């Protein structure tokens, strides 16, 4: 049969055009979210007074902004140094929890017997409100030791990382393993060429959960005592002093850190596994 008879498929078929379009996201798509955000601020600023909600219940955005300016880096509620201290705990927890989680995931993926008892524990532990252990961590490692908070964060991070990464390493298409078997590939080769790339999307999903959890671990750990120049202590102490504008300011700092964390992970995901975003349809 003549090869040319059927004609070569062209490189710019409709499927590819569609993908190229999906790959770009216009500024216009962000407009609705921005409108809601600005509208929310305006409503808080002017709407609250109109319905007679007292400012100590829900302070005006301008009052929170003023509190941020007043407590930027000095005074009892110095926000920036406190946020940095909390950030440090969260980052240490995130790094320690992730390294430990990935290590255990590799072990449980490699050895079926390890997976037999590790994975049910990890999945079970995921369902436990681990945060309830926070006072114990303070007790074990010392109330003033930032490590107690970092380790709280690490434990929270650990379990979803174990569960997700193990799943990514193990749940490989059976056909892919048969293909590698037909190449007489070693376990090590299969790990590098199939299992690890397969696990990357799972890893990034875990990291998106983990960044949030690391902040929760650090801040809630701080609630139960310790150094006062951390976000958690500012939240507790300003609230008990009825300085709710400061409380909100501290919460906003925590929120900002959380959003930046998430954005970093999302960006890294785009850079490392661009194909996964396209497959999900949100490239």
């Amino acid at each position, binding site marked *: *049969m*003549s*090869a040319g008879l*059927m004609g*070569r*498929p*062209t*490189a710019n*078929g409709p*499927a*590819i055009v569609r*993908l190229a379009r999906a790959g770009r996201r216009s500024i216009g798509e962000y407009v609705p979210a921005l409108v809601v955000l600005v509208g929310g601020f305006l409503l808080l600023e002017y709407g609250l007074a109109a319905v007679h909600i007292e400012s100590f219940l829900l302070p005006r955005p301008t009052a929170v902004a003023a509190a941020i300016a007043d407590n930027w880096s000095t005074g009892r509620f110095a926000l920036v140094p406190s946020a940095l201290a909390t950030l440090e705990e969260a980052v240490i927890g995130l790094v320690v929890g992730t390294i430990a989680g990935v290590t255990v995931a590799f072990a449980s993926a490699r050895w*079926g017997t390890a*997976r037999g008892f590790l994975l049910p524990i990890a999945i079970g532990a995921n369902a436990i409100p681990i945060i309830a252990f926070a006072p114990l961590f303070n007790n074990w490692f010392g109330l003033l030791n930032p490590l107690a908070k970092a380790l709280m964060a690490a434990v929270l991070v650990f379990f979803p990382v174990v569960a997700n990464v193990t799943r990514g390493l193990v749940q490989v*298409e*059976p*056909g*892919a393993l*048969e*293909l*590698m*078997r*037909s*190449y*007489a*590939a070693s376990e090590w*080769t299969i790990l590098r*060429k*199939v299992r690890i*790339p397969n696990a*990357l999307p799972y890893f990034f999903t875990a990291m998106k959960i983990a960044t949030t959890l690391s902040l929760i671990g650090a801040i809630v750990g701080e609630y139960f005592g310790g150094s006062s120049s951390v976000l958690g202590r500012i939240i507790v102490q300003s609230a008990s002093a009825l300085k709710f504008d400061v409380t909100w300011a501290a919460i906003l700092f925590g929120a900002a850190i959380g959003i930046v964390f998430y954005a970093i992970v999302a960006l890294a995901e785009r850079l490392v*596994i661009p*194909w*996964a975003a*396209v*497959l999900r349809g949100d490239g």
Partner: protein
Amino acid sequence: MTDPHSAPSGAVPVVRISGVDKTFTRGDSILTKALEAIDLDVNLGEFISFIGPSGCGKSTLLRIVGDLTSPTSGTVTVNGKTAERARRDRDYGMVFQAPVLFDWRTVEDNVKLPLEILGQDAATRTKRAREMLELVELGDFLKHHPYQLSGGMQQRVAIARALAFQPSILLMDEPFGALDEMTRERMNGEVLRIWQQTGTTILFVTHSIPEAVFLSSRVVVMSARPGRIAKVIDIDLPRPRNEDSRETRRYFELVTEVREVLRAGGGSLDDAATVDAGGSLERALAEGPIG
């Protein structure tokens, strides 16, 4: 003109299957007798198809030849070696019903995968991958990712990958089963052209009678429960074959002959149409629980 792909008597058997039985068991109880007393020699450069109803064990037989599963009894010799030795020597290229491409690799890098595992140097890998992709007419798609291609194109990438390390035998397990009729016929033409260009021995599992007749030098018709060889039919259609070959009288006669043997074996075409489910069941039974 002599046809190098016919099966002359006294030719070297590339694959020798003798007395192969395959029984799937769970615990002590026998679930399925998938294959019974299979004897077959496949000669160098042959294109041999396996066709039969659901549960006739044709996929299982191919998997035994490829050492993806082992026979309960009997032996398979490939290039004078055991099937396992042949697999370890990378004598096989395999193409499955699903293309099994890796989305994180470009089309070119997918084809390079076996070459990387074989430890070939980068220059050779690139050269070879591009040659193979030209062969399947995907030379313009080197940097695309699999998800950007249609099903037929993906399957061509899988074929290019299987051919990349120049295996002496190509095992194809319903490679076009998931494709529409038009694409399938086009792919048949491609596979025939590739076979003629490379001289690779091909073992091909299908549930399409026209496909089997059009492609093969011999068609192995199988019957089910237990899986046995009902008849081996020589396909004496002249080569080179093209779309016109599908309209010759001899072609229709051969299609009819295959159909009649299938019917006599108790396997209807409707039965054959459910073969996908049967194949995956066989696979599930063969592999047992994942873990």
